[in-house]
């Protein structure tokens, strides 16, 4: 805890009534009448970890630590916890869901995000396992993100409206073509009372890395192993989780990439990649080539996007914002 008092100038009140009023004003200035979602998330995470998540997490962590130990000595374990919340301005952008402008087209890639417009998102870097690094060796770091989605303070009615709009603008079949069943189910997250958790692990190997104010940069034959994905990139940026989730923020960003998914097999080459913190989707732009089990796709326009999940592959065309599974255009 901080030792230095935060408010200690000549303007700080001393009487107990004024001190009370000072605290009310400071809290009101900080959040108005809104809940402190970050605090609630922190507490909820703690009690949920005790009750539900700890078992899964422990098994996974043991496995990860063991893997790292085989490579080299674990030299640093740090914990960073920061919570982000989808703000209302973002909610208002997403909820209409027209899918025509560039920005909204991006959101249209994640139909359930429209429902998630009224949910809060917690993105927590739980653990950094930094393997021993010596000159001449490649740098290898491991990260675990704890992603938590929970209902916001917005009304239940709002979330239902958001979801309805998605389904009206996008046929169920179109959504189904893109989304795995589990993701469709997650469209109802906004109606859940309890947080939903997801743990995402990244192992990053690179020739070198450097810490910047906004995050970590990896350069030189970067390899990211993430679930069933293997991402080769010229450079990777791992931003520090910020206090707000904004439209273009990402868990991880990379440039000049080649992404391989093992099952179902898929390879995509693109200029840039970002991992959406809300959905966990891999979103690629500047795509030059995509290879799936059905064939090869090469005629991408500059505005086209490719989106990958564990099981799905989708192309969104820049001109009309429409969805394609990619299959109809494969040669």
């Amino acid at each position: 805890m901080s030792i230095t008092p935060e408010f200690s100038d000549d303007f700080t009140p001393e009487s107990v009534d004024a001190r009370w009023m000072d605290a009310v004003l400071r809290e009101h200035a900080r959040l108005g009448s809104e809940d402190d979602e970050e605090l609630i998330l922190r507490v909820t995470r703690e009690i949920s970890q005790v009750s539900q998540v700890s078992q899964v997490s422990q098994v996974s962590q043991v496995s990860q630590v063991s893997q790292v130990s085989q490579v080299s000595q674990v030299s640093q374990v740090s914990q960073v916890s920061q919570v982000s919340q989808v703000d209302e301005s973002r909610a208002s952008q997403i909820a209409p869901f027209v899918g025509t402008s560039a920005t909204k087209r991006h959101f249209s890639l994640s139909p359930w995000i429209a429902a998630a417009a009224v949910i809060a998102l917690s993105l927590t870097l739980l653990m950094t396992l930094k393997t021993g690094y010596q000159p001449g060796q490649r740098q290898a770091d491991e990260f675990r993100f704890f992603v938590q989605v929970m209902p916001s303070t917005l009304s239940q009615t709002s979330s239902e409206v958001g979801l309805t709009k998605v389904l009206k603008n996008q046929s169920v079949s179109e959504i189904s073509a893109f989304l795995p069943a589990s993701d469709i189910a997650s469209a109802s997250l906004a109606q859940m009372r309890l947080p939903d958790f997801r743990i995402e692990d990244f192992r990053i190997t690179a020739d070198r890395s450097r810490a910047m104010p906004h995050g970590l940069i990896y350069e030189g034959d970067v390899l990211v192993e993430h679930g069933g994905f293997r991402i080769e990139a010229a450079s990777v940026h791992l931003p520090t989780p910020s206090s707000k989730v904004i439209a273009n923020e990402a868990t991880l960003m990379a440039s000049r990439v080649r992404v391989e998914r093992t099952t179902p097999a898929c390879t995509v080459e693109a200029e840039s990649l970002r991992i959406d913190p809300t959905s966990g989707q891999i979103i690629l732009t500047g795509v030059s080539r995509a290879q799936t089990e059905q064939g090869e796709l090469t005629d991408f326009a500059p505005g086209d996007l490719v989106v990958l999940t564990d099981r799905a592959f989708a192309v969104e065309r820049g001109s009309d914002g429409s969805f394609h599974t990619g299959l109809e255009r494969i040669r």
Partner: protein
Amino acid sequence: MASPEQFSELVRTHHRDLLVYALALTRNSATARDIVQEAFITAYQKRGTFDETRDFATWMRGIVRNKWREWLRKNRRYDLGDHELSRLDEDITAWQSRRAEGGSDLFAELDDCLCLLPPLLQETVQAYYYEGRNGDEVAAHLGVAPAAIRKRLERARILLKQCLDRKRSNATNLPVS
């Protein structure tokens, strides 16, 4: 015994009042938030010992107070006497009770009271609390002496406290000046 889900709801219901309480005690928002977080976690861990016939808000205030005393022992400053502590408890208790009875929220009432402040005090409060300026910066911003700002803030706090007290006792819509 409350499930994690039920306990999360309790956290949502009570955290803002407890944050004000902890902030009044510590005068440090980061510390206040740490204390409230730790208090909730302690409460969750000890929820089996909580007598459900008792008031949860009172129990939580007690835990926050204990956490604050632990913090005081480490930092040896900003202590409050028993009488002052009782005054703070009265305020927080009154607002918690009001909300439990379906009355309006402390912060919503504060919105109203702020609008009732005289313009000079309004702009001073706005600059100091809501725009994040320190006292000297507010003085420079408003073109008055720091001593005047100090007086204005004192006056504003008194008027706002009176306004909130009146609203708490349902004597609403009285001018504060």
